[in-house]
């Protein structure tokens, strides 16, 4: 029996009591003995634990709700970007070309240049929006894990890049035995296309570019890969900034690009349970490393298709 009891001085205590029947040798009931134990401290501790647990559970439930709401907001946002931002942009772009057509000979060089700038900016913004959409879509898409032969995949990506070198000399040094990993082939192709594409792009000023691909096994993290180039490099203190959306370390006039590639790459690798990091020295070249777990786990797998339908009025 457990209950609150009152002491003689009026204070309360939590008691565990045991009631024992007292019998004589013949088994005749003679009376009862009762032992009370003061368990107040244990009870207080127990209650406290229970309260903390309840509160934690409430807090987790609230946070989860908030996160789900935030996630939904994000999805609505990307949906709006797709629908609502692309429209006016298309109007700007289209009516500028119609205007150019309409005025034709009446346009002087300055006017033509201004129209060209408007059209170019609209085109650039359209690329940024497409990049943003690709990035947000990736957060929602399912990752389909299958064995992926990286020797073949890297070969295909390199061939595509090497196909159009524009007269450049590029030495590709590829480890001959790249492993078969667990991953989403389409997404991993995107990773390699971005990293090798960057290496190709940022070695452009070199008379002879060298791009090296290798790997190792680290029992703690899984496979570890690297792409090393002798390109223009960057200051290592910006190494983390590189992987943010629309973060660029070069002017568009130096190297083209929207700044979405490495953000996408990081997101793909994280969705595979891996990670990416980089080191570099300005003017000497860069090394990009990334890891993939052996099993290709999905620690943050998102729902496959959760596009909100609610935006239509």
């Amino acid at each position, binding site marked *: 029996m457990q209950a609150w009891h009152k002491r003689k001085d009026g204070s309360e205590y939590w008691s565990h009591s045991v009631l024992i029947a007292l019998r004589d040798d013949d088994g005749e009931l003679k009376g009862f003995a009762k032992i009370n134990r003061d368990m107040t401290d244990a009870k207080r501790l127990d209650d406290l634990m229970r309260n903390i647990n309840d509160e934690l559970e409430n807090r987790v439930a609230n946070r989860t709700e908030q996160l789900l709401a935030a996630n939904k907001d994000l999805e609505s946002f990307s949906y709006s970007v797709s629908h609502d931002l692309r429209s006016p942009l298309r109007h700007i772009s289209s009516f500028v*070309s119609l205007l150019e057509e309409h005025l034709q000979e009446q346009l002087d060089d300055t006017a033509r240049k201004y129209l060209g700038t408007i059209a170019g900016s609209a085109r650039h913004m359209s690329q940024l929006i497409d990049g943003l959409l690709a990035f947000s879509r990736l957060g929602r898409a399912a990752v389909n894990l299958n064995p992926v032969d990286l020797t073949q995949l890297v070969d295909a990506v390199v061939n595509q890049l090497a196909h159009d070198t524009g007269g450049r000399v590029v030495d590709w040094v590829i480890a001959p035995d790249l492993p078969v990993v667990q991953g989403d082939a389409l997404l991993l192709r995107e990773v390699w296309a971005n990293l090798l594409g960057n290496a190709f792009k940022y070695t452009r000023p070199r008379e002879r570019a060298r791009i090296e691909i290798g790997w190792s096994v680290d029992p703690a993290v899984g496979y570890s890969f690297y792409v090393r180039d002798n390109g223009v490099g960057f200051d290592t203190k910006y190494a983390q900034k590189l992987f943010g959306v629309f973060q660029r370390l070069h002017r568009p006039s130096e190297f083209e690009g929207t700044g979405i590639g490495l953000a996408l790459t990081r997101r793909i690798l994280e969705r595979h349970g891996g990670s990416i990091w980089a080191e570099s020295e300005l003017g000497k070249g860069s090394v990009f490393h990334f890891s993939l777990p052996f099993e290709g786990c999905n620690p943050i797998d998102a729902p496959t298709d959760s596009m909100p339908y609610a935006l239509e009025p």
Partner: protein
Amino acid sequence: MNTNADAILLVEDNPDDAELTRLALARHGLDGRVTHVSDGMQALDYLYRRDAFAERTGGNPVLVLLDLKMPLLDGIGVLKEIKGSDALRNIPVVVLTSSTEPSDLQRAYDAGTNAYIAKPTEFAQFLSAMKHVCEFWININQTAPQSGSTGARNTGFGDLS
């Protein structure tokens, strides 16, 4: 015989988009064939000859160009209505939208659209996408049977984008 058997119904709430689509169709020789309505309800009124279109003569349009995001009734709603109706089901529908979302593409095909065009940002590219629509229009007007209220029987119309 229908007086406007070769009409194209353009369902588009944004006047700028409507103008661009009309211009693109005109470039490919389909000027004057387009009837424009500004939302999904008007589209159904037109198709079912209700309200403002109660006095409409002629048969079904041979092609519906359908925006997705519209007030009152959206494109998917119109699409479901068309593809669920015995009288309208055979009208080819081309969804013409800004959206590049795979889920929109999926919803549109699930609802029975015959084609889906995600409108490109640049007018030149939009023109070339609309060229396919016009070739299709020419195609159905050459091969369509002369009898019946519906001009088109062509259902093998793939993705134009």
